Every structure is written in C-alpha cells, then in structure tokens.
C-alpha cells in the first residue's frame, strides 16, 4: 500500500505551501518576524486566506468526486446543481435592492440553496431522482439564472457588475473570521460524513443496479450525498464566490494518480486540493502584486496543463 507514503508526502507539501503562503505576498516577511509587531495583522489575514483555501480546495474537490461517482458522469462538478448562478443572482438582486454588503454572503447562500431546491424538484419523478434529469435541470436553471443576471446588470448598470466580479471569478480575500468558522462547520462535517459513505460510493460508481445487488439503498444514499455536496458548495460560495476547475478536474487528476477507491481517494484529494488552492491563491496575490488576479483564472491556467499531461500519459503514477 502506497497510501501512507502518499499521505505523508502530501501532508509535508501542504505544510510547505502554508509556510510559503504565510511569508510571501505583497510584502515578504521572514518566518522569524512573522509574529512580531505590525506583522501580526498581516499574519492573521494571510492565515485566514490559507484556511479559506484549504476549505475551498477540500470541499469543492470532494463534492466533485461524489457527484462524478453517483451521477456516473465525468463532467459532473459542484456547481452542476445551479448553485453558482443561484448565488450570483441572489447577490445581484441584493446589491440592486441596496442591501448592506455584510449580508451579501447570506444572500448568496440563500440563492444557492434556492436553486438546489428547484433543480432537485425538477429532477424528481415519483420520488426517484434520475441522473440525466438532474444534470439537465441543473443546466437549464443555470442558463435561466445567468440570463437574468445579465438582464439585471444591463438594466441597472455598472454598480452591480462591479460587486459581481469577485463572485464570478472567485476570491479568497476574507475579512471576517467569524464567517470562515461558520462556513468551516458544514464543510468539515460534510466531508467527514461523505467519507463514511466511501464504500457505498465505490459500489454506486459501478452503476445503480450493481449497488442495489450489493444491498445498497441507492436512492436514499444518493439523496443524502447530493444534499451534503449542495450544502458544502453553497457554504463555500458565500466566502469565495465561484472558483472553477478545482471541483471538476482535481477529482479526475487524483483518480488517475491514486485510483478510484474512495476510501483512499477522498483523504488524499483533500490534501492535494488544499495544496493546489493554497499555491494558486499565493500566485494570484503575488504574480502582479499589488494587483490581484482572480483565483479562478489561476486555477484554470495552472491546472489545465497538468491535467493534459496526466491524460496524455494515460498511466497512473
């Protein structure tokens, strides 16, 4: 079993990434001075970003793993259920209605939850969720909500658009540590709950009939898992906006490297995705400092070539 070795390596990498994340930035601070005087404030801000990055990485990647396995669709990803456009729409409406900025995360969360409820109910037929209907409903709701966003923005002009930007491209700039801990709760508990279903996920990924023949109540477990991933995604959207790529490609990359067994895949992916997002965030704020590049841009530009190399190599490492 390479599991332990890989776990240790990824753990060390995460440690290194965190240290880099703390000392590098618009201002570089040597490790020894990190806790001294005024540096303390910068340290706290950077630490919050790193925590956010770890939550976002693990949460999105694990949600992607789950949705790809239960829907048996390689294009499944955390925003599939319309969460991203739902959150975006709610945020735009809130801005136009003149709601205080403090309440934007709450509005986004509610918007995400609302869109999940709509998509889920559209896909349900006689108590059964069919995979294809769920995917199609998600796509339709996303398109409708996105069009409404564009419609509202073109009516009400730049003000709303400006507020929207960080949402659409994602940012880990978090000022409110209370919000982070509020979000950490559902994300961490959700990932732990998903891990307990790893053997069920293995079976369901083979097909619904196969899983039924192994004694698994597939409909109930699918519903629970969809609900958990929706909750994780909606929570993350309200602190970081929409960060593409992580939830779609990182699961594929990790499956190529460590295989599809969810008992191994889930913990290793949490670590790898955390390293990935911490480093991407570091680049997003240092590459053209003091200008910050949206992290969604970085994740795509760095992740895509890595993924293509793995795909072309075709072999597991």
């Amino acid at each position, binding site marked *: 079993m390479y599991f332990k070795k890989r776990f240790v390596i990824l753990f060390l990498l995460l440690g290194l990434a965190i240290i880099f994340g703390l000392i590098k930035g618009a201002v570089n601070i040597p490790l020894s001075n990190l806790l001294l005087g005024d540096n303390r404030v910068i340290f706290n801000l950077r630490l919050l970003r790193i925590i956010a990055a770890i939550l976002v990485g693990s949460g999105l990647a694990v949600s992607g793993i789950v949705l790809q396995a239960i829907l048996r669709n390689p294009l499944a990803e955390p925003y599939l259920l319309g969460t991203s456009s739902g959150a975006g729409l709610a945020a735009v409406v809130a801005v136009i209605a003149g709601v205080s900025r403090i309440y934007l995360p709450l509005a986004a969360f509610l918007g995400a939850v609302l869109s999940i409820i709509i998509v889920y109910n559209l896909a349900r037929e006689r108590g059964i969720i069919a995979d294809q209907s769920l995917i199609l409903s998600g796509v339709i709701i996303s398109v409708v909500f996105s069009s409404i966003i564009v419609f509202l923005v073109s009516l009400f002009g730049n003000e709303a658009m400006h507020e929207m930007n960080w949402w659409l491209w994602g940012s880990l700039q978090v000022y409110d540590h209370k919000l982070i801990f509020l979000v950490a709760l559902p994300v961490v508990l959700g990932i732990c709950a998903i891990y307990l279903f790893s053997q069920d996920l293995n079976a369901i990924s083979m097909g619904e*009939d196969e899983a039924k*023949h192994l*004694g698994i109540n597939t409909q109930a477990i699918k519903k629970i898992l969809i609900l958990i991933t929706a909750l994780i995604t909606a929570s993350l959207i309200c602190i970081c906006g929409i960060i593409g790529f992580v939830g779609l490609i990182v699961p594929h990359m990790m499956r190529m490297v460590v295989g599809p067994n969810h008992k191994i895949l889930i913990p290793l992916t949490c670590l790898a995705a955390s390293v990935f997002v911490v480093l991407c965030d570091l680049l997003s704020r240092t590459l053209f400092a003091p200008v910050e590049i949206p992290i969604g841009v970085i994740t795509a530009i760095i992740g895509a070539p890595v993924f293509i190399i793995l795909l072309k190599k075709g072999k597991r490492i």
Partner: protein
Amino acid sequence: MGIMLEIKNISGGYYKENIIKGISLDVTRGDFLVVIGPNGSGKTTLLRLVTRALPLRKGEVLYKGQDTLHMNLKEFCRRIAFVSQDASTGFSFTVMELVLMGRIPHLKRLQFESKRDIEIAREKLMLTDTFSLKDKRMDELSAGERQRVIIARALAQEPELLFLDEPTSHLDIGHQIQALDLLKKLNRRNGLTIVMILHDLNLAAAYANRIALLDKGVIFKAGTPEEVLTYQNIEAVYKTIVLVGKNPVTGKPNLVLVPGEN
C-alpha cells in the same frame, strides 16, 4: 431438497406494458437452473424482478417461505447474489477492491472491512483462480479474467443462491467452458444454487439440471433438458428448425442448426 425460492405469479416491466406476464417457478436447493428464450422474451427482466432491482407489479417471491420484499435489502443480498451482464463498467478498481465490495452486505453502516472480510475475499479469489491478479486494475484484465473476478465478488457475498445474466456472452468457447465448469464445481461441491440465463442452447443442455424456456413474458416450458429441448418446443418459440440429437459425451440433448437455402 427443500424449495429455496418460490416465484409466485409475478408480473412487471419498465413502462406501461408488463414484460413479464405472470410467471411462477420454483428453485430447489442445489438446482442448476438455466433460463433460455429468444431476445426480448423477458429473461433479464425476470431476473431483475426476482432480485429486487425492479419492483414487482403483481405476485410475490418467497425465499424459504419468507416474502423477499419484507427482507432487509442487505440481508437479502447476503443470501442472494447477482452477476449482471455488463458488470464492471465504472471506474477501474483493482481486483481486490472490487471483490471486497462483495462484503458490503455483511457490513453495518459506518463499518469498514475487517481482517476476516479480506480473508474471505482472498479465499474467493483463490477459488476462482484469480488470486495472482489481485493488485491489477480491472481494465488491464481480459474478458475471461474479468468475468471470473465478478463471480468472485458475488461469492464474497457468501450467497446460497447465485443469479447470473449471460455470464459467457463476451467469452470465446474456451473461456465459456472454463467459467461454466467453475460454476458447476461451485454447484456440486459447495452446494451453491445457481439460476443463470444462457443464449447457447447446447451449453444450457450440457450444464443445467433444469431449464426454463421463456417466450413473450411467460414460461413456455420448464423441466429437464430432455423435456424442454425438443425440436417442437424450439421451433414454436424460436421460429427456427433444429435437429435434436445426443451429445456423445454427456448424453444430454445436442441441437444442430439447419440453415435456410438448403
């Protein structure tokens, strides 16, 4: 020789129309029952109805006198295993990982496999002659090896009754015989009761102790190979002419096809 499974007048299907229209059939302990019938006669649907993959619209299935719908699904799967036709099309698990999934019915929620489960998985790998493959990925295997691994997973469920849907459909004749010999061995030595769909009527004749011939969702004839595989029955159901002789080695019926234009 008690009755293990009583199928009582069941009906069911996918859309409005029933595909299975009132089938009754008993499976006796130690049976090697082969289900045959033309394409679309409802063989796979029958197996899916009986194994609870598809809901019954009428009738009931009793396992040792107990209504299977009242059995806990995991308990059901500890007694009855199913090898489907296109098994293993998902991600590429290793052979060991796949066979360990057969232990799921024996595990409680939130319980991971113990040493004993791994021991049982190894034992089934040995039994199906796939132990040397245990660390390979499923997509590295040949069709014959893959089929034996899928059978090993079903055996890891430690069932008393094993259903198989055309286990030999992707195999050449050598591997067909190999897979069926394995099942015969399990049937004879380990007392595993087997219900299997086969397309090849000569293979059905050679291995089955009983055959059920399906036609348009009902049982046309069930009985010993000699009783079922007559040229009248085959012509009535398959709309084709065959000669029925005797396999010189097994003494079982042997069908010879008669091509047209002759």
